[in-house]
């Protein structure tokens, strides 16, 4: 099995000093964002290209379980699926016998990290842990930072933090920057994904500003949602965050990844997001170093679609292993 490591040609975002003028005057016009999303929906992926795209979606996936009833056994089963997401005959049909595809990471709650690390040992698949009082992020800062250190100490290589929404809703940008920077420091060598919880921020202007502050504070990846908000990842929110990534790169010279989460359920959703990444940011952002999809039920839909494309089978859930 190939081991996916972070591409060293793309240096980590170190963050920058806090620059209010990098984002304070930026505007986002929601109607125009909607028009661009509608334009992008007209791209057509030829049928013979589709298996490659769907396989890539799997390879960019943070296979996730974040439920109150998670157990060691549930996490072990998820990890087994993460290592072999596709039925062997589909792997063969894809021509990937020698390097079968696997997901990018497994994402769990902090208490489940030890189980996941053990289950994935030797696979090269990193464990990602949510932290900082996920999903609301309203525990004391000291507790949120301690949670990060715990998950890292238990072997999590990636930490998905949530931002303190009040700082955005009251435009307290310096406070937001300070907190996220402290979280980045607590992450150490682990990569940090900053969840903006865009469904709580409501306006695209808030999304853009929060994204810029999180990147200045050192986020390796900016992520849309916890999956627990009323509205999760949408294409307009994603486009707004990608434009922020482009603006941040132009201003700082540094590269940041993107992760939509929540609300991506179908193979068609996966194709729509990959198209968005390809068109707006280019090839590097269609690969797992700079693009992740947070999902729990998406994999099943992709398996069924691949089965249909490669073997002609009717889309049937029971033909595939349960995640």
């Amino acid at each position: 099995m190939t081991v996916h490591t972070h591409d060293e040609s793309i240096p980590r975002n170190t963050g920058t000093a806090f620059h209010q003028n990098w984002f304070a005057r930026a505007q986002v016009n929601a109607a125009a964002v909607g028009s661009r999303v509608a334009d992008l929906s007209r791209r057509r992926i030829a049928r013979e290209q589709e298996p490659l795209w769907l396989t890539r979606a799997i390879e960019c996936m943070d296979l996730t379980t974040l439920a109150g009833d998670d157990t060691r056994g549930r996490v072990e089963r998820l990890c087994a699926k993460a290592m072999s997401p596709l039925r062997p005959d589909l792997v063969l049909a894809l021509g990937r016998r020698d390097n079968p595809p696997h997901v990018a990471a497994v994402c769990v709650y902090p208490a489940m990290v030890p189980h996941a690390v053990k289950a994935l040992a030797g696979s090269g698949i990193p464990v990602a842990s949510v932290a900082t009082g996920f999903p609301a992020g309203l525990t004391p800062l000291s507790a949120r930072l301690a949670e990060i250190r715990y998950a890292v100490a238990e072997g999590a290589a990636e930490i998905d933090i949530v931002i303190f929404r009040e700082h955005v809703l009251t435009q307290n940008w310096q406070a937001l920057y300070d907190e996220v920077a402290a979280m980045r420091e607590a992450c150490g060598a682990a990569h940090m994904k900053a969840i903006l919880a865009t469904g709580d921020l409501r306006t695209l202007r808030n999304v853009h500003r929060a994204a810029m502050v999180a990147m200045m504070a050192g986020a390796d990846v900016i992520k849309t949602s916890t999956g627990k908000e009323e509205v999760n990842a949408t294409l307009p929110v994603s486009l707004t965050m990608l434009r922020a990534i482009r603006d941040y790169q132009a201003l700082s010279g540094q590269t940041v990844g993107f992760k939509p989460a929540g609300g991506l359920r179908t193979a068609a959703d996966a194709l729509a997001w990959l198209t968005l990444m390809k068109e707006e940011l280019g090839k590097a952002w269609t690969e797992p170093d700079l693009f992740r999809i947070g999902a729990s039920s998406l994999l099943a839909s992709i398996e069924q679609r691949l089965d249909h494309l490669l073997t002609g089978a009717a889309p049937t859930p029971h033909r595939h292993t349960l995640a």
Partner: protein
Amino acid sequence: MSSPFATLDYGSAPVNAEAARSFLAQAAPQPAVAAAQKAASAAATAWRKTAPALRAQRLRALARHMEQKAGFLAALAALDGKVPVASTLAQVVPRAVAALDHFADQAPLLAGAPGLAAVLGEGAGLAALVEAVAPALAAGQGVVIASAAPMARAFAALAAAAGLPGGLVQTVKNDPSTEQALLALAAITHVSFTGPRAKSLALRGQLAATGKTASFTLSGPTVLIVHDDADLDAAVEAAAHLLWPGEGHGVRLHVQEGVAPRFSGKLVNRLSRLRLGDPLDANTDLAADVKPVLPDITSFRTPDEAVQLANHPGDAVAASVWSENLSFALDTAARLRCATVWLNGVNHHAPAAPAVQHFPRPGKNPATAEMLAAAVKAQTAWAALAPAARAEKLAHLAASLPARAAGLAHRLMAAGDATGVSRRVQPGLVFFTLPDPQGVLAVTPASPGLEGLVTAVLPALAAGNAVLLHSPEGAARRALEVAAAHLPPALISFASAEKILADERLAGSFAGTPPARHKTVWAAFGT
């Protein structure tokens, strides 16, 4: 370390072009004008007698037929004009279909018109063609299209296939002698022209003496104005749309100086991400051998300067204005001299939004060049007044008139304020119209009495125009002259001589009451 991952590619997704290829391969004998007129007139006789509700039904059938044939039309535009199929499918066909449906709705409300409509103006594309043809068909007229383009021929074929009387839509060549032969025909009662302002002026002069009605859709560049508080990515996207080939006639970019470097950088980046390729491929933004010309960006310092730049030269027909500041955006829209303004948007169209200048009954132009020059000066100051200030001065005029004429004047002024439309086109997109002064209008009253004069003059003055009144000396004219003594000089000029003047400074000549002109302002919104 290089990436182990392959590039994701869309693959080839061409539309089926077989039907379009064989259509283009067919010989296309263009009938002579006389033969075309004879065939169209014969078909129009039956069409005019068809009940309006049934005409509406046929037009809707044509709209559905066009939707079904969208792939064929897209392939035709790609093969003939290198227009990417995505553009025809997403924009052009829906716009043409909307025009047919709109005028089908209007058909029962329109007074049937006799004769034929001539559609002039090459290179306007399918959407503009259908927008010119649909009102004539709805009114019961036949149509002769002066165009050699395969698209015009395809439209005529679709009309016949959809069940309109055979021969109702004719196409003839588009050379100058054919055009003149068409204009000379008595059977042509209406002329619809799409093209540049200069040619429309010449045509207007020529039509003035003929009694044919006319409508003009001017073509010209679109101005993009980007204020310093705009969403720059969105404005860049709009610029990219305007630079893509399609039905546009060029673009001028005006960007606030402080954001111009960033705008320019983003635009270059955006254009580098356009997908060049086969226009028949659904994922092609631009035919590989068509290069978008990146125009110079002219920067401005203040909103005032943006408006001045946009209005000079005054050939722009539309503007796309970008600002997140409502006050800036609306003020810019109100001061731009063009028929359509998109606020934070671009290329929105709706058949109910007026973009066409109508000349219901062209009148005479009874003025000398000196009178015209004085009138232009007077009109500029008059149009700059607030509508309420104009109304106050006109109320003085009305007060000096005999009672019946005064009452009429007040009614006309009140009605002038009430015109205009506004619609919600879709959630987050509305348009509304603003009265737009046209300039100096030559007006021939429908009746010679004082009431005829008042009817001809008052609405035009209230809208901010100056009037050259063609009226013989007499008691009525003297009464109006006395009443108008309070008004700025040269706002109404009286002339009895008949001189046909095709002068660019003359905004139009009308018989009866000149129609009000409106500017359409589109506003897109959302959070």
